[in-house]
């Protein structure tokens, strides 16, 4: 597609529920990143996919967080047993390899009540 697409744009969930966030990167971009951003804060790295290599999961804050990327394209970030501190904007970005020139999606605003 023309840009990075994320869905849903907003998600309100009850504490303890599982949520899935979707990212559709730019076609042909081999690198895909997930970040999260709390209100007024900078971006926090979560996970990185590059081609068929094993993902770099070093930024995932707990084992409740997981992500997969199917067929080198669409990625899903799953948060199990959501907690209030998970409330944030989750941003996905893609790029051609590790150029540093990322294209970000508009994010998913997650609110855990």
């Amino acid at each position, binding site marked *: 597609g023309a840009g990075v697409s994320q869905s849903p744009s907003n998600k309100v969930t009850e504490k303890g529920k599982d949520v899935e966030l979707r990212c559709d990167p730019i076609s042909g971009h081999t690198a895909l990143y997930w970040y999260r951003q709390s209100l007024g*804060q900078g971006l926090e790295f979560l996970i990185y996919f590059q081609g068929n290599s094993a993902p770099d999961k*070093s930024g995932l804050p707990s084992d409740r967080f997981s992500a997969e990327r199917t067929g080198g394209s669409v990625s899903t970030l799953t948060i199990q047993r959501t907690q209030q501190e998970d409330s944030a904007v989750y941003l996905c*970005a893609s790029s051609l390899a590790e150029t540093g020139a990322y294209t970000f999606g508009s994010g998913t605003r997650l609110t855990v009540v």
Partner: protein
Amino acid sequence: LAKTTQPISMDSYEGQEVNITCSHNNIATNDYITWYQQFPSQGPRFIIQGYKTKVTNEVASLFIPADRKSSTLSLPRVSLSDTAVYYCLVPSTGGFKTIFGAGTRLFVKA
């Protein structure tokens, strides 16, 4: 890992040139320097990327001295719509693995 360091905030007036400097003392030989702009409720947007000397595009210029330990993003004749947070990113200082940092909040006044 050393962080990139930027001013927390800057104020300017419409029509002025704004220069935001980022220090990145531990930049590696192969690293590019990338700047992003973020408006509220949006993801960051790529502005410009450079390796050395000067790069210019339709939005901004990027000045990088010979030692590459810093870089300056220059926004010519800013307008109210340039009010945003600006981040500089250098892979060897953690790059995509680190918190981007708070960036520089630029506020343009009429």
